[in-house]
């Protein structure tokens, strides 16, 4: 084990000062979302954990995207902040899927040129399942977290603050030994109870600078549950977790309704949040939790509009909760269909049926909740006929919005091995769901991109639908603004990504 003396700064009295910097380097956003600058909730959570568990560690935050800084300004700011450890990582796929990696790598490169001694750690989405491999590939990084970051990052920071750090003792970490060889420490078990974690330290972040979907100011993204019991084979949620665990992604853990409401209340009262996007993948697994959340929000009379992602079967099970949910602020919800033909649903192990999705779209509409259905193209069997057929059925179901994703073969998802032979584009900046990076058995990568652009444009230019989602006042104004971004980008930015390979993240 190498001794990492360099990172320990000597305080006046000879004690050690550890400064951890949470860095959001310059990066863009999804083509279909126009300007979207969200808070990094994973950073806020880790910062809170460190503050609570190791108060002696200094925490710094630099969100260059929110502050509109370029690379040089970032390096200057970091030089001034003088951290010993820099962490970059996200928990949410919505930041840009794998396209975040080249951005982090570039940031690490320029930082190391000026501050060669600073340690750089990444983790979370995409890295969690690929820690040793990513460290191997990225000399600019010093550590990559394997699996859940919540305990590992604080422990790493703590360990590094010692004069004789014992890195192998930090579980869930890929590091380099004294010979420069990549090593992986022991598996880190999951946190069983999310309520043991403090609320994210939003106070350290420039909360007034965030913008959602180009138009919504005072916008916040939260992350109140972990995992999804469904374990769809294509789901990128898997990539947050160490494959040595026991299907950690499917181990569903929600925060208690009281703490969820506490967090929302804090966001509204202290930070002036006007719209809360709960970006965790599957919020509505347990009915009691949803009932609890409704109760808590009602009691507090918060009246903040919010969005969450859930699954169609759970919504249908709890159909009587849609009305009370709408009353406490649930204005827009997303549920997945991913593919609408039975065959594909079975192939990807998605326990949802086409009828369920259609029924739920109707129920959402009855309750004035805007519906967003996610769906996918790019499965190996996809040909033009299949994709167009899927579009036809989607059109019949007529959700308010459709979030189209092009299948992206992230290492760490169960379908990965099967998809690898179809992958044709290895520039990770395009691995953001909005570019075609693989071909199918019947379609070239280019054809797939073109069909994706076609399908999206078809959906968002349909007379009647466009007017409904842009102007119908039963939908909350923020929902109509989100719809506006999708309509605006359908023939433009979205197509530029899918057809012309233009980079956005």
């Amino acid at each position: 084990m190498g001794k990492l003396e360099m990172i320990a700064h000597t305080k006046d009295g000879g004690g050690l000062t550890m400064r951890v910097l949470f860095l959001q380097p310059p990066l863009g956003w999804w083509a279909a979302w126009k300007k979207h600058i969200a808070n990094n909730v994973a950073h806020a959570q880790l910062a809170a954990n460190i503050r609570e568990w190791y108060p002696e560690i200094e925490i710094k935050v630099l969100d260059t995207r929110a502050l509109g800084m370029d690379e040089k300004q970032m390096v200057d700011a970091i030089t001034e902040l003088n951290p010993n450890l820099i962490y970059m990582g996200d928990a949410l796929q919505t930041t840009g899927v794998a396209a975040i990696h080249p951005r982090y790598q570039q940031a690490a490169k320029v930082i190391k040129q000026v501050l060669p001694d600073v340690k750089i750690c990444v983790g979370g989405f995409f890295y969690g399942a690929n820690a040793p491999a990513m460290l191997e590939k990225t000399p600019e990084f010093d550590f990559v977290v394997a699996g859940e970051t919540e305990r590992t990052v604080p422990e790493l920071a703590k360990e590094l603050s010692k004069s004789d750090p014992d890195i192998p003792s930090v579980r869930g970490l890929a590091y380099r030994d004294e010979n420069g060889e990549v090593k992986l420490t022991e598996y880190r078990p999951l946190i069983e109870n999310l309520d043991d974690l403090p609320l994210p330290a939003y106070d350290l972040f420039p909360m007034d600078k965030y913008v959602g979907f180009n138009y919504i100011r005072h916008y916040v993204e939260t992350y109140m549950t972990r995992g999804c019991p469904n374990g769809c084979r294509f789901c990128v949620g898997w990539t947050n977790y160490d494959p040595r665990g026991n299907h950690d992604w499917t181990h569903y853990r929600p925060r208690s309704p009281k703490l969820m409401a506490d967090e929302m209340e804090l966001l509204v009262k202290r930070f002036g949040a006007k719209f809360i996007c709960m970006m965790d993948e599957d919020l509505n697994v347990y009915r009691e939790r949803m009932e609890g959340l409704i109760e808590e929000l009602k009691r507090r009379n918060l009246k903040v509009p919010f969005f969450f992602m859930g699954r169609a079967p759970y919504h249908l099970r709890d159909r009587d909760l849609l009305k009370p949910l709408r009353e406490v602020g649930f204005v827009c919800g997303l549920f997945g269909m991913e593919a609408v033909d039975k065959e594909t649903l079975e192939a990807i192990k998605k326990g949802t049926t086409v009828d369920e999705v259609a029924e739920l779209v109707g129920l959402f509409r009855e309750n004035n909740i805007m519906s967003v259905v996610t769906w996918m193209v790019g499965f190996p069997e996809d040909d033009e006929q299949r994709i167009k057929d899927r579009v036809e059925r989607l059109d019949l179901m007529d959700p308010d919005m459709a979030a189209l994703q092009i299948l992206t073969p992230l290492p760490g998802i169960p379908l990965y091995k099967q998809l690898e032979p179809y992958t044709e584009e290895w520039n990770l900046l395009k691995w953001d769901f909005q570019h075609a990076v693989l071909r199918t058995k019947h379609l070239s990568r280019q054809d797939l991109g073109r069909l994706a652009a076609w399908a999206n444009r078809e959906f968002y230019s349909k007379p009647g639908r466009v007017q409904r989602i842009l102007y119908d006042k039963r939908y909350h104004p923020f929902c109509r603004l989100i719809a506006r971004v999708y309509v605006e980008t359908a023939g433009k930015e979205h197509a530029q990504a899918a057809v012309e390979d233009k980079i956005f993240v």
Partner: protein
Amino acid sequence: MMNRDIHLTAQDLLRAMQFKPGDFGEIAIVSGQPQRVQMALEKLKNPLRNFSAMGYTLWTGEYKGKRVTVGHGGMYAPDAALITELLCAGGVECLIRLGSCGAMKKDIEIGDYVIAEGAIRGDGVTRYYVKDGFQPKADPELTQKLFSLCKKHAHKGLVWTTDALLRETKDFVNGAIAQGAIAVDMVTSPFFTIAQLYNKRACAVLVVSDNLITGEIGFADIRVFDAERRLIERGFDLVREV
């Protein structure tokens, strides 16, 4: 040989559809686009669908105490002629068309409005109604009101009505411009012509979706959607004033 003067009149057709006087309001707001019809319909109190034939549907309801008919006014010159004549024969006194057009001046932008003062007859249907030199005109008073309601982004002028979307060639287009046209559509000429023949007041406002001079196409542009939405509001603002 046919011995009757005319096979079908508007009255014949209305009768055949069990139409009764009063089924239409005094004012009609028509459009060729179903989504615009839908948005207009939402403004009416107690709308009754009391005309539907050949795929064209009209509803009559109340708006600020006035009886207003809204519905599908035709997409091309021939069907626009038919619906316009039925409306006139059915007792409508004031016709407002909410349409769309291609601009023929460089500085007219996608999402702007063209308020038609009159039409240049590039269509085929009006020659069955009027002689060659006839110039279809909008009601000047309604047109002026409409213009001031839309003032921002509004352009007043003549609209050339064509029957051949895919033959908007340099020769035809420049010919129309030389006659004073600032925009092209496929409806306005018969719409004004027939209203004039029946002594009714008519006006037309058209959202610009493309520009023939710059070549810009904005069919699914958000500016067009937004302008279309405001168009409905302006149509009903006008109803208040007539």
